């Protein structure tokens, strides 16, 4: 709802980064993972990529965004960046991800203070950038008068190459998730059939 620019004509640059994110998603599909991928961009340069790795790790929190974030944190600190420099870096990062960040990832991106997010298809079941919660839009809660800023919002634009992202997901769910427990109901296409 707060998400801007759904269906807008995107610049070639944005589309090019989303292509790279989709490549990551395809890679995930090849590895029998839910096909979601992302790239992190700073000053026009791709500085990290990630793809869903939940099956391989048996850790359902290892979403594409989390993978890319870990790459960045390790990389930056190996080069000796301080805490404040790390924070500064995140505030200049743009994320391109094939599916709307889930509630967990959206919260994580807010914690890190990322600059902006472009995503492909919406995430009707878990989305944290407008679908279920709107964690990107809130400057969260005035409860604490402490010196540190509470909840950081970020600019968020959805619908970039959404159909490509959806068709990858469709591929995955049609072949069935071999790792999920036996479904209670027949498998249907999900998520984001719209």
């Amino acid at each position, binding site marked *: 709802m707060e998400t801007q620019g759904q269906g807008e004509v995107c610049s070639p640059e944005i589309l090019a980064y989303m292509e790279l994110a989709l490549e990551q998603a395809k890679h995930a599909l090849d590895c029998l993972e839910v096909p979601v991928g992302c790239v992190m961009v700073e000053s026009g340069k791709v500085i990290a990529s990630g793809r869903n790795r939940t099956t391989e790790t048996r850790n359902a929190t290892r979403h594409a965004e989390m993978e890319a974030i870990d790459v960045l944190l390790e990389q930056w600190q*190996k080069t000796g960046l301080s*805490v404040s420099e790390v924070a500064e870096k995140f505030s200049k990062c743009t994320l391109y991800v094939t599916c709307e960040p889930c509630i967990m990832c959206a919260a994580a991106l807010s914690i890190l*203070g990322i600059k902006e997010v472009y995503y492909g298809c919406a995430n009707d079941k878990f989305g944290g950038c407008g679908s279920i919660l709107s964690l990107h839009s809130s400057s969260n809660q005035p409860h604490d008068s402490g010196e540190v800023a509470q909840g950081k919002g970020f600019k968020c634009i959805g619908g970039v190459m959404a159909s490509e992202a959806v068709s990858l997901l469709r591929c995955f769910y049609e072949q069935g998730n071999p790792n999920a427990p036996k479904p209670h109901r027949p498998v249907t296409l999900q998520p984001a059939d719209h």
Partner: protein
Amino acid sequence: MTNEKTEVWKIIHIPDKRPISPKEQPTVNAFASVIEPKLANALIRLLNQIAPLEDMRHVKRIQKRHDESGKIQLSVILCLASENDNQSSNMPQNVQELINSYQLSPFIIKVCKWAATSREEWEEQCKLWPTSYHPPTYNINGITGFGEEDSQSVFNFMKVAVDLAKSGGGLMVNAAVIVDPSVQQIIASGHDQIYSWHSRTGIENSNFKQPASFASNPKPSGANHLTVFPNNLHNGPARLYAGVSCLNPWHWCGQQLDMGSSCYLHPLQHAAIVAIESSAERDRRLFPGLLHTVKSSEVKHMQSSCAGSPAKRQKINLAYVEDGKELDADSEVTSVRPYLCTGYDIYLVWEPCTMCAMALVHQRIRRIFYAFPNPNAGALGSVHRLQGEKSLNHHYAVFRVVLPEEVLNVAEVVARADDDNDQIATAVS
């Protein structure tokens, strides 16, 4: 409400919906009419066919009252009405026909939209129109209460989590313990590691040095170190809790710590996230073959090879399982690999933030127990309430465990002065 100084353990269910005052329950409009008592059976049978009260099974179709003269008067609900529209002409055709043939005179009433969840709610509901109330029956989630044995087990595991959170000395952190309740076994645990991150890839095997306060095998000595826990968060010295990741998720960037080269910063390594990774690591270790069923003999064989590898061993945080028990615990593994944390419980000292609460949805945790509400960023009732987000594909049951004084070992510095500042208590009650 007074400051929550308690002498006993208590388990409080945190429901899916924000609790509302019994007097403020949402209502919907309905058309009703007074009827002849002798027609009651026939009319109700007819109405249940032509205008069933879908999704409102708690609402009784008929109301029995005594009028001024003491005579019994019966009214029935004909059908639901929309919010602003009390035109009987908008009723379904067959209801109108019934009204005409029995010469009824419809009027608008209000009925409560949702079934009562407590006796108090039910009594309020019946002032509007009678409803039924079924005190919830026992189920595996323990929503309706815990038996003595189960309660004791909950308290014991929560104490493990509290001890883990205290292990940092004066600096408070959040701690998480994942438990398989069917065998009373600790599967994994973790505490906040925002400033002491082990990267999974690069630095795992390097000569990694942890800050002393997060030594991997902490001994909760109790007696000497300052252990201040908030029965009322706003009473305590705030800086003591500044290090609790879920309370202050955005705090990391304000820190002026000298990281040095010995440890990495990871602002997302909250206790629950650390514990989830630890349980996933255990899963990978015990069930290395992804899709084939591991026979228990294979598990045993694998354990012995793992036991010889201290590097792998130490990644599993079993610090609080007594030495002798560690191997026993592993050998209780069943031959079927669990899917993520299905069936497991997690004990957290603080109510998790949105990121952690959603992570626990993804990992399929069955029940969450936390000791202290998190008014800043809590996602299980304080700021958000993920257990009530219907669209999610998994739902856990949430409980707050109120701890007695002696477990908290509250130091005198927690002022008792502002008992009126009870934001925390009201956030959950």
